[in-house]
């Protein structure tokens, strides 16, 4: 029987609310429910466009058990397809590679263009007869998943019926309009993955509050004190934290990364760190940015894909490497916390916990969003019965 959790108190005001019940972190039925309510029906982060830098680059990605193909087509547009042939459902691409011409299914060699069009169906009408009246190629292109690129993140709406990305996130796009500059991925030394034994939502929850910073990241204390941070809350969309004392990384000679054009003057020592619901964690600073795409593996496992970006395609190798190491250390410091909270969700008497009305509102904002989306999903499921 499907687990139905009581979310009535999650959406109460922050001073009275409890957090999400344990089942939202450890129950397979709830995970499946959230897969649809929070990930497939929203704009979820899948990857970054830098994963497929050149036309023809293809990368198979499994997202919540679904085989997808991230592909940059011949015109340079990034697309996401279901990674299966329309003939027998065979996996088309099993490892990252360059598509030189067409995608050929390895089973019966049906071929697709990089835009997903079915271009050949060998022997479909018998040996040497490559057409058949019942196989209408224009109706049998690859199933494309609705996608959108923003801040180099490839966002997908699997259900296909969410409002346009710009509509959902218009407020955030405006908020960060100053940062709307070309982003250059730092390359191989500017990406890493962290395998974490936690439900993906705990990574969001930890990211969007500054309350833990002095305890978990004591190295930040010397220049980034708790009182230098502010909350960022946009109900139903995103939450996070900002700092008023962002300090640029320097090398021994005092060199820094170049600023994004016009951003340095405006933002100076201010920087923002926002969890864009459901599963993307973004950082925006005067001289570099990052994106973390949380890949939910199962109830208790998450892969964090971290990517660092700069204002220029050319940055100093040593400084860039140092920056990657610095961020990796910070993000690794969070692992014991999210893994510890995950273990804590197996304590049967835990009631979801309580929030500091002053310090935890960005986390509560996320819980409120989760509860609202799950309630909506349950309502739709009930109406369909």
């Amino acid at each position, binding site marked *: 029987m499907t687990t139905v959790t009581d979310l009535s108190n999650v959406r109460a005001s922050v001073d009275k609310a409890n957090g999400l019940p344990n089942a939202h972190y450890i129950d397979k039925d709830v995970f499946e429910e959230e897969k649809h309510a929070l990930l497939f029906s929203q704009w979820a982060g899948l990857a970054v466009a830098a994963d497929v830098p050149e036309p023809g680059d293809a990368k198979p990605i499994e997202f919540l058990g679904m085989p997808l193909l991230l592909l940059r087509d011949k015109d340079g547009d990034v697309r996401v397809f279901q990674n299966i042939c329309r003939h027998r459902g065979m996996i088309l691409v099993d490892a990252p590679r360059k598509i*030189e*011409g*067409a*995608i*050929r299914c390895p089973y019966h*060699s049906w*071929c697709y263009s990089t835009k997903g069009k079915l*271009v*050949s169906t*060998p*022997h479909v009408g018998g*040996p*040497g*007869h*490559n*057409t058949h009246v019942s196989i209408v*190629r224009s109706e049998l292109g690859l199933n494309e998943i609705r996608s959108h690129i923003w801040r180099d993140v490839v966002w997908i709406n699997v259900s296909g019926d969410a409002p346009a990305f710009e509509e959902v996130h218009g407020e955030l796009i405006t908020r960060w309009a100053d940062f709307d500059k070309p982003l250059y991925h730092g390359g191989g030394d500017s990406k890493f993955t962290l395998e974490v034994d936690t439900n993906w939502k705990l990574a969001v929850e930890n990211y969007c509050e500054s309350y833990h910073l002095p305890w978990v990241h004591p190295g930040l204390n010397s220049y980034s004190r708790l009182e230098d941070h502010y909350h960022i809350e946009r109900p139903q969309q995103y939450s996070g934290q900002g700092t008023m004392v962002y300090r640029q990384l320097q090398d021994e000679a005092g060199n820094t990364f170049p600023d994004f054009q016009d951003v340095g003057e405006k933002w100076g020592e201010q920087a923002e760190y926002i969890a864009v619901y459901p599963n993307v964690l973004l950082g925006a600073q005067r001289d570099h940015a990052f994106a973390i795409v949380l890949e939910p593996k199962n109830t208790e496992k998450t892969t964090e894909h971290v990517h660092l970006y700069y204002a220029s395609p050319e940055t100093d190798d040593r400084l860039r490497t140092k920056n990657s190491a610095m961020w990796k250390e910070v993000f690794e410091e969070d692992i014991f916390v999210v893994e510890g909270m995950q273990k804590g969700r197996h304590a049967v008497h835990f009631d979801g916990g309580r929030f500091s009305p002053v310090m935890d509102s960005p986390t509560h904002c996320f819980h409120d969003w989760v509860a609202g989306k799950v309630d909506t999903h349950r309502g739709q499921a009930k109406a369909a019965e």
Partner: protein
Amino acid sequence: MSSDLDARMIAAHEAGDPQALIRLYTQAADEANALDAACFYLTHAYIFALEAGAPEAAALHARLKAHGREA
């Protein structure tokens, strides 16, 4: 098909050599005695050319289309 051509085709498949596959299947089509057999080999040459983005694809497609075997 000669046993030599057959052997070279098998070697090209094993090597995953698209240029050789295009060339050898085209040769097999050119040497075939019957239209169906020729179109069978032409189809393979065309598909490998299509996959490789090889310039031969256009001419191979035209030959198949001329025989009513391709759209």
